[in-house]
């Protein structure tokens, strides 16, 4: 397995979406590839840190802000380019909501680029928490079949 495929498997493993065979393949690759081992450690650390962040709270004026932006956007767009059905408007509304959530400061929080990153990370945490609560990830598993290794320490008797 090459490093490009290993990086894809790292994402799957971190997300808990990898099968046992894929985990074994990755384990074997990581044993012999320091670069991918570093990448795996970094991804694991990021995932762990993101779990420690609090859930984001949307600002109270989110809905009105989105409606405002939609109205402004509609007024600015030429009639020929307007969305023709309400169904087609749904993706645009969703995209704007994500944009607003991403750029809105958290209550009591500071502002700036650090805050933006924090909010994005929190949003991804929320989706993970929801996934776990809805049972989309198994919490019971069998011990994975891993590469054989044995430690040798000194024994006195």
């Amino acid at each position, binding site marked *: 397995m090459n490093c490009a495929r290993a990086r894809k498997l790292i994402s799957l493993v971190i997300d808990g979406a990898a099968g046992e065979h894929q985990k074994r393949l990755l384990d074997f690759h990581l044993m012999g590839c320091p670069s991918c081992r570093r990448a795996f450690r970094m991804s694991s650390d990021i995932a762990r840190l993101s779990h420690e962040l609090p859930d984001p709270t949307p600002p109270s004026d989110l809905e009105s802000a989105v409606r405002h932006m939609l109205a402004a956007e509609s007024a600015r767009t030429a009639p020929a380019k307007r969305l023709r059905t309400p169904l087609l408007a749904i993706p645009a509304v969703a995209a704007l909501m994500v944009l607003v959530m991403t750029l809105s400061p958290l209550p009591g929080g500071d502002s700036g680029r650090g805050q933006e990153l924090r909010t994005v990370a929190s949003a991804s945490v929320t989706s993970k928490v929801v996934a776990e609560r809805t049972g989309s990830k198994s919490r019971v598993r*069998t011990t994975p079949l891993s590469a054989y290794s044995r430690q*040798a320490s000194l024994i006195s008797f």
Partner: protein
Amino acid sequence: MLHLVAVLLTLSRGLPSDMVFTLRAEVQPGSIELSSAAAISPDCAVALAVFPASCPISVETPEGIFQPESIVCSPDLGLHILFFGERIFDASQPPCEEAPGAGDKLTIVGQGLSGLLSIEGTATMRYPDGAILLTAPFLDGMMGAAVFDSENRLVGLITGILEVQDGPLGAGEEYLVLYPSQIWYMWAQLACDPGLGDAPPFGVTAMASISFDPDRPSGIQLVSVAEGSEAWRIGLRPGDLISAIDGHPVFHPETLRGLRILSCDTLETVVWSHGVERLVAIPPVVTR
């Protein structure tokens, strides 16, 4: 006649699946990992140390779910002995003193998500550290699975998979790894009966030594020998490597420690040092 006795002995041991039980370890809060525990006495089981002994552990039998009173761990052997303080296993047997040979058919009983799995495997060869490589399907639940020979004797636990460059099946083949009870049965016996462990010190510090060099054996490497100790008096010296005891290859210090305490007879050891082999007799512990 001998065949009949062997058949009766096999039947009396019970089915392999009767001696393997579901082990649940809460490796993280809310995260359960299922593995196997093999009953080696009515109140003791052996399991692969794939989880920390400090995490909540329970074993499920037809009579209920039981938590061990205590756990003895050997990081070197990679095993846990679970004590329950009461008879909870209807079927059990002590681990076998013999290792399977190449070509032996084996039954592997592991723990799948929906219950016990039983598959067939074949012993192919011995790895330099004493482990035995098996050809068998790689299935979920095989990590820590208990392995039984054709006479339903517990011959070890599955401890992982290994890719061997020069295997009998070709380069780069992967095998299931069986860590045979021949290496650890005496450790398990001592762990199950702590009263047996009271023995005068032998006077050595040793470690497992694995050799891939055909001119040098694997074995128990003596790192230091205390002057004036029993080991010193019988002629063992730092740098000696004990490669066999009573005609059987040995790989781990726990084997020597256990055999010295449990054996009633003198142990005949083969000691390798700087390319020369010599025989050293280790007397039994006299205080027992």
